[in-house]
């Protein structure tokens, strides 16, 4: 991300957290950054876009990251990484701002990075291999599993924001992944997951 855009994003996020999203105007962010409104709009198209750009940045990098883990033979880590692309930002911004972001996606019907993309192809391939290796014992097709896991992630995020983050997002989703895939050895996922951090 460019310097200026980064400054806007970071300042915006700080103000959102301090005062609450709805209380912060574009002008507030401009003043805090020491820039004019026209300069702001050269980098970011709207207030919502501050949140959107944070997720975009992650989504743009996800494909090579998953690819790399796959090539290293860390298939479960690759799977986890690809499924939970938005968790990192969600945890960073917190449930309140996350609910604004999810509402934004709904309001403007923004399709997910997950489906009908190269990421989907790669993830389905990974699921297929894990199934052949016997790590995944669910007999459903890799594509169905991918969609079920995707919807589960979105649903878990929704429950997480509307319960104001009352449960551990990553742990909650991990259980669902284990359940859907019927993993032969769930501890393997935990080990590979730990190595990611």
């Amino acid at each position, binding site marked *: 991300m460019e310097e200026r855009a980064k400054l806007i994003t970071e300042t915006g996020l700080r103000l959102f957290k301090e005062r609450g999203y709805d209380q912060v105007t574009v002008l507030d962010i401009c003043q805090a950054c020491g820039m004019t409104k026209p300069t702001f709009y050269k980098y970011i198209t709207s207030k919502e876009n501050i949140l959107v750009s944070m997720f975009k940045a992650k989504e743009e990098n996800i494909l090579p990251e998953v690819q790399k883990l796959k090539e290293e033979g860390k298939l479960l880590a690759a799977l986890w990484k690809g499924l939970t692309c938005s968790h990192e930002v969600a945890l960073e911004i917190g449930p309140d701002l996350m609910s604004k972001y999810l509402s934004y996606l709904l309001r403007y019907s*923004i399709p997910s990075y997950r489906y009908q993309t190269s990421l989907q192809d790669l993830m389905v391939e990974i699921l297929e291999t894990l199934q052949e290796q016997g790590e995944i014992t669910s007999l459903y097709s890799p594509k169905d599993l991918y969609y*079920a896991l995707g919807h*589960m992630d*979105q*649903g878990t995020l*929704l429950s997480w924001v*509307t319960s104001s983050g009352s449960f551990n997002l990553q742990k909650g989703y991990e259980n*669902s992944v284990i359940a859907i895939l019927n993993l032969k050895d769930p501890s393997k996922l935990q080990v590979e997951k730990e190595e990611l951090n």
Partner: protein
Amino acid sequence: MERTAMSEKICDTAMQLFVKKGFYDISVNEICKAVGITKPTFYKYVRTKEDILYQYYSFNPAKMLPEWSSPENGNYWKSIVKGFSMCFSHYISLDTQLLSRLLISQISNNTLSFQSDPQWNEKMMELIEKAQMEKQILSGWEPCQILRMMKSYALGYCFFICTEGMEDHKTVLDTFTLLLSTVAQTSPEFM
């Protein structure tokens, strides 16, 4: 006019307008005009436009319980699917813009749930436990966890339909059921 009759009339008229012209483009004034009432009268029955959506989407699950909760030929999974599908079909019965709007307002007031009716949940849990005992559901997780996961999945699927658009209702419903069975690990012979 009787209280419930009037609020029903307002809701029905408003929903028709929403479907025809879109939720955001219909003002309270237009609804009043179509019903033939004044704004103060409107606000006597309805607080906000969103309330109309709530009212439409909230149906009485207790009334519908007998329709799905007694399993035929001991197939508990079928009953579970029916219970979920009835809610889901209702959500997708109108256009996705209205469902999106409903989700947005439920997100903002933290009331979002696929189905929060206690009776519905209790009955579901009972059916899941029986389906597990009969090896119709192969997942070994606790019934309450399976139910929670199925509801999370269902909510995520509603979100998906809102953002990606919807094919025909039948395809959407078939996919919904198929993926629901991946969550519970349904045995193929009972699907």
